[in-house]
């Protein structure tokens, strides 16, 4: 597991009674959870259980039908579902990062790796070219991409490299929380291990919070302090990662944990 977060009384993020319906179809229902500063939260469950819907609601990409997403900003707890669009956009842009499973969606594929990072820095207000390039180089190194590749297009990168570039581009503006949707799915296991390693180091070094949606319980155990288990849009069980995985109480969690092949 990643390094333990420091004690903190105020959560960074609090989701309360969050529901999302797509017409008559249930996305997620009456979800509540909190994330403390430095805490890594895993949301696990099978495909279609509403994990990504929940994450997209938090990220402001989907408007929830009901409930609130409170974010602890410099101006106090702000309900992202009930604030002006300008304020919500500002908080989302400066305080959160969002990493998708498909790096091609999260990156600009027609501009260079350095450009992808620089783009975010400029959106954050930086203008000095030399400075931007220097920071882009430092970030590439941090996510273990050869700095010589700074001028290459992401399309020439492997899947694992694209994913690490996406993470770097999201971290340059020092967000408080990273929202990640299946960041390791679709990668080779060796590439996965490297990505997980990079994430572990970043989280403990930056006191970053993370909400990680994954169906991979081994990844969840390695990275997450706490887990929430979702089934058909509902939250069925939550607790410390080792509690959920070693002492699952709910029938669905027991099924989930017992279905994994241990290599």
């Amino acid at each position, binding site marked *: 597991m990643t*390094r*333990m*977060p420091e*004690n*903190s009384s105020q959560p960074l993020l609090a989701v309360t009674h969050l529901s999302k319906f797509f017409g008559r179809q249930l996305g997620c229902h009456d979800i509540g959870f909190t994330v*403390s500063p430095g805490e890594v939260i895993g949301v696990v469950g099978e495909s279609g259980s509403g994990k990504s819907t929940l994450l997209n609601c938090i990220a402001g990409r989907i408007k929830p039908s009901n409930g609130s997403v409170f974010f602890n900003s410099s101006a106090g707890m702000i309900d992202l579902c009930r604030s002006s669009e300008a304020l919500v956009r500002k908080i989302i842009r400066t305080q959160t990062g969002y990493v998708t499973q498909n790096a091609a969606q999260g990156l600009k594929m027609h501009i260079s790796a350095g450009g992808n990072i620089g783009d975010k820095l400029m959106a954050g207000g930086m203008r000095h070219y030399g400075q931007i390039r220097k920071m882009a180089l430092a970030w590439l190194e941090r996510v273990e991409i050869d700095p010589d590749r700074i001028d290459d297009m992401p399309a020439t990168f492997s899947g694992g490299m694209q994913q690490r570039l996406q993470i770097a581009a999201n971290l340059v503006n020092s967000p408080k929380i990273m929202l990640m949707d299946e960041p390791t799915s679709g990668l080779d296991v060796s590439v996965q*291990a*490297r990505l*997980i*390693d990079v994430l*572990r180091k970043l989280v403990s070094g930056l006191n970053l919070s993370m909400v990680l949606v994954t169906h991979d319980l081994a990844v969840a*155990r*390695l990275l997450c*302090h*706490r887990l929430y288990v979702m089934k058909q849009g509902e939250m069925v069980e939550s*607790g*410390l990662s*080792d*509690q959920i995985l*070693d*002492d699952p*109480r*709910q*029938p669905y969690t*027991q*099924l989930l944990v*017992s279905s994994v092949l241990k290599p």
Partner: protein
Amino acid sequence: MAPRWILKLENIEKDFVFHLQQGTRIVVFDRFSYLFFPGQASILTGPSGSGKSTLLRMIFGTYKTGGGHIWVRHRGRGVDIAAAQPARIYTLRRDTIGYVSQFLRVVPRVSALDTVIEPLLARNMDLEKARKKGRALLERLNIPSNMWHLSATTFSGGEQQRINLARGFIAPFPILLLDEPTASLDLKNRQIVIDLIKEALADNTCVIGVFHDPADHRDFDDHTIDLSLMLNQEVMQPCTQKN
């Protein structure tokens, strides 16, 4: 003056319900109480399935407690593990309760040395100082220095167990839980581990252990707790709750 307990089990209850297996319910603890003191070794005995590992995992917070309290003296204050918030359990595990499991959970790409010193870094020790301490302990446990920078993924069972032990002993904990720490070790390394445990005891650590080899019991015969006497773990009954 009577010595002050460091860990107090108060009427703890634990059962497992296997929903996928006809709702079979196994009761492991039914209102079990016990006091543990600093500098004392307690050996849990009983046939397999009598709840030895379960008790260690309950104290560490990995297994949820069904009823009762597990009081731990943490920075001078009593904290009930059975009811503690996650944030409190993180700090308990960082500062107060150490746990050496039967098997090392190896993280790929992290070197053996860095695996060992993680508990020190969690307490904000300087990296170089921590590495120095880690190297000394690995040396003591006879892990060849040319393996320190490798991930423990490819290590033998005995080597992995020594990495696991080094991780458990690198930082002092007021309470140390040991689950068969010597099971896969040869005689020479077994003796080193026994010495480490004795040093921890001399340091006033409360050690609670399960030992695979009854010979180990003789080394610290302070206290044995025979779990087969308290329970009725044979009692299996179908759970009334339907899933």
